[in-house]
């Protein structure tokens, strides 16, 4: 904080310091006061619409929205005076009069911000007649359920979808009390340009947007006589604990495996092994492209939301830039239903594979015709939390245990798949070795680890200059894609993740997705990576064995059949 623009003000009588241009809500938050808010989100444009974060400022006649009022020197602010509390309570009551009040039977029960604030403000009734709308629930999407009867019009979803992701699937429609959030011309989510990333689900504070649940199907499966296999994505171990009160940034790999085994899975496999295989194939593909002067930049394709984004908006121009490699999930799924089924001599039809993913778009991915018959169900991190609670698993006190062989061993390179820049770093570790023809020691590519939306680096590998770029959020990706389209891209290799922060910020991860929490999750994954002896995918003995026993060489015919895919142009309304 430079001295020049430092100012002093009072919040609830206590003197605090702030910088000019800061907003009241942020200064209060830094000083331990979390002013209630719905429409405010540190990553989105401030709009000051929900009027819950109002505070009293001495000398000002009206109450001020703290999310969009800048601090001034000498300001005296009261965040919880009787007048403020009364106004806040009434604005909450107005929202509740227009909200489906079926909390105990709502999917967001106990996760809901609206519910939390109602309880904190001790709202026991609403004096207003119900103005509850009777809109139809939009159940059309395979990932996201939209129930406008619970919408409080905070606009977070619209801002995430349009401003951050540039997907433009939903917008504000009509005026006044008739305002709704819908896809254009009242089309369904399925018909819209929605890429299933679920960032709107994470942003929604009132249960209007939730993931499409597969919990009942999984419970049925757990009670069937099928052989049950589960795989868990790299980022789940870094976030699942939060749902059980474990502080953010604590890896819970061992407990997670124990829990899954306890609820009835016969085998617990690690998607990380799929990630290691992805890297081997992807690095191979990249080296081939570089050596053979083929289409560059090559873009990673682990993220199903980005894939749909690309297929919708850039198919004609850029489909050749997309790596043909499947995502780790899809790779492990195909290996389970072929290699592993073969190994345990079971008909793939008698195996049920459940994926635990950070992501609502994975629900869409497993239903793609290309992957038919592979993975059966996807549960998000939040859903797994709900399932474990429903089955009364005492998660916090569980002992640790290990993944099952032969699809359970992974390297540090796979762990970092869960955060932005991780796939690139993992790929570079392997590609650098391949191009240099040696076992390189320096394997930390720190320049691509930050939370900046677009990160680039230039490296020299085996005498060749390689420019790489890492980008998260599809809005930021769009800028790079436009650049490629115009033939101006300076890059050789690009990683795209649709969600802010990568998979640790995925649409199926527990909220809140603020920068603080996301940074802790990243650190958790980096810690896991650094604690491992083997940190390069191509050194994974399990992977090497897999190639030796079954796949042959990277890029072989069988590898192509099981580990690669194709893309198709997608249309939208």
């Amino acid at each position, binding site marked *: 904080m430079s001295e020049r623009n430092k100012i002093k003000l009072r919040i609830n009588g206590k003197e605090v310091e702030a910088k000019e241009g800061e907003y009241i809500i942020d200064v209060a938050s830094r000083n331990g006061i979390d002013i209630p808010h719905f429409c405010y989100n540190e990553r989105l444009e*401030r*709009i*000051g*619409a*929900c*009027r*819950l974060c*109002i505070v009293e400022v001495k000398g000002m006649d*009206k*109450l001020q*929205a703290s999310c*969009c*009022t*800048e601090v001034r020197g000498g300001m005296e602010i009261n965040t919880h005076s009787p*007048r403020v509390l*009364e*106004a806040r309570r*009434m*604005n909450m009551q*107005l*929202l509740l*009069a*227009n909200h489906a009040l079926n909390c105990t039977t709502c999917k967001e029960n106990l996760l809901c911000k609206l519910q939390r604030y109602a309880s904190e403000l001790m709202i026991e009734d609403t*004096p*207003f*007649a119900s*103005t509850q709308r009777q809109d139809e629930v939009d159940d059309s999407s395979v990932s996201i359920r939209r129930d406008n009867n619970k919408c*409080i*019009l905070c606009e977070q979803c619209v801002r995430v979808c349009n401003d951050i992701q540039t997907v433009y699937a939903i917008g*504000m429609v*009509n*005026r*006044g*009390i*008739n*305002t709704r959030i819908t896809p254009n011309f009242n089309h369904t989510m399925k018909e819209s340009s929605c890429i299933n990333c679920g960032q709107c689900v994470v942003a929604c504070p009132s249960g209007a947007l939730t993931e499409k649940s597969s919990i009942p199907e999984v419970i049925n499966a757990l009670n069937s006589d099928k052989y049950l296999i589960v795989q868990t994505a790299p980022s789940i171990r870094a976030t699942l604990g939060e749902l059980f009160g474990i502080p953010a940034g604590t890896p819970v790999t061992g407990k997670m495996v124990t829990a899954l085994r306890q609820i009835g899975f016969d085998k617990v496999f690690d998607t990380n092994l799929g990630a290691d295989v992805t890297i081997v194939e992807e690095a191979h593909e990249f080296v081939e492209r570089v050596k053979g002067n083929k289409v560059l930049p090559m873009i990673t394709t682990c993220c199903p939301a980005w894939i749909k984004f690309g297929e919708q908006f850039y198919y004609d121009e850029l489909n050749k830039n997309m790596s043909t490699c499947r995502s780790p999930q899809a790779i492990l799924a195909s290996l389970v239903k072929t290699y592993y089924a073969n190994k345990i001599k079971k008909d793939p039809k008698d195996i049920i594979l459940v994926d635990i993913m950070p992501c609502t778009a994975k629900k869409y991915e497993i239903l793609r015709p290309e992957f038919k018959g592979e993975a059966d169900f996807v549960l998000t991190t939040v859903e797994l939390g709900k399932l474990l609670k429903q089955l009364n698993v005492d998660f916090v006190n569980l002992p640790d245990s290990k993944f099952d062989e032969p699809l359970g061993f992974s390297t540090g390179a796979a762990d970092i798949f869960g955060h932005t820049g991780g796939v690139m770093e993992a790929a570079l570790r392997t590609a650098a070795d391949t191009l240099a023809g040696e076992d390189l020691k320096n394997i930390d590519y720190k320049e691509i680890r930050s939370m900046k939306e677009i990160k680039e680096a230039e490296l020299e590998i085996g005498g060749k200059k390689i420019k790489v770029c890492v980008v998260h959020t599809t809005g930021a990706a769009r800028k790079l894609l436009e650049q490629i389209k115009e033939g101006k891209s300076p890059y050789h290799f690009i990683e795209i993740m649709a969600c802010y922060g990568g998979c640790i910020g995925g649409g199926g991860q527990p909220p809140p997705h603020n920068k603080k929490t996301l940074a802790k999750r990243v650190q958790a994954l980096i810690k896991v990576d650094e604690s491992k002896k083997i940190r390069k995918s191509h050194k994974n003995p399990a992977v090497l064995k897999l190639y030796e026993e079954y796949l042959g060489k990277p890029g072989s015919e069988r590898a192509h059949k099981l580990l690669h895919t194709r893309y198709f142009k997608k249309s939208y309304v």
Partner: protein
Amino acid sequence: MKILQKVNLEGWKKVNELGADGTIELLKKKGLTGRGGACFLSGLKWEFTRKEKGDEKFVICNADEGEPGTFKDKLILEKNPENVIEGVLIACYCTDAKQAYIYLRGEYHYLKEKLEDVIKKILSDAKFDLKIDIVEGAGAYICGDETAIIASIENKRGYPHFKPPYPPQKGLFGKPTVINNVETLANVPLALVDDSWSDGVRLFSLSGDVSKPGVYEIKMGTKLEGIAKICQAKDPKAVYFGAAGGCIPYSSNFVINVEHICKEEAMLGACSLIFVSKKRNMLDMAINITQFFKHESCGKCTPCREGNVHVLKLLEKIKSGEDNKKDLVLLEKLSVIIRDTALCGLGQSCTNHVLTALKYFKGDFKVK
């Protein structure tokens, strides 16, 4: 009427003599204030914009007159558009804007063609490099708010934006922008050239239970009795200042000026007086005006969007004659909280009419 006197680019000539800074100084000295209702010194607004750095600046003429009972801008645009355009020209000159917009409310579509001709003529006569475009609204009261006009010209929904930043700092397309009302701009050349010009003379739109409704030039400080006489008000009981300004009981000796009305917890706004006769019930008026606000609330902020629905419900319930003690208390509390917490000027003033009616005419709200 003075406002209809054609200046024939005399103001523009004077501006060329005085230069931008001199013109701004003169306007400040003459005390020209905005006629949109906020009563801010126009010269000061221009000065802020002039001083702001920016590769591009804009001037917007707010011709989205939508306040119920207000029709003075329509008269000016019909009878003396030349002065308005000259005002725009001068505003652009003083703020270094190269592009101006006239945000014309959709309901005044019939004025568009004539305005375009006037723009063409004045720009060619003045020999000044400037682009003036007419953007037509499409029916939204909220677009009278300056930040909502900006959103509307930017092709977004007409949602208001919190202030600061004010338009002179960050306005249209993020650039410094001056927004002035039609009447203000029409007064600019007059104030510059006419020595007898005074800021105290305003255009009043008079309507309601009156025999001679119309636009009149009236001095600030005139007694209500005098105004009632001009428009031949019929047995007046109350006067509304538009819909947003709230009401006061009719009293012949009440002197009309901003401070007096403010003291009564009403707002003069754009000098629109709607007279209500003794045969009316103020509860019916409250219902009618709340219907207006419910229809025109943009829906962005919670208290105005949700609140107006409940204000109307409560008023209708009171009207139905049920035991209403609790409802009256709730109505008043809700009205205060909408006023205190809404985002924009419209939201903050949309319950003035309820609060003032409850204050002065509580009898009308009692069960019969």
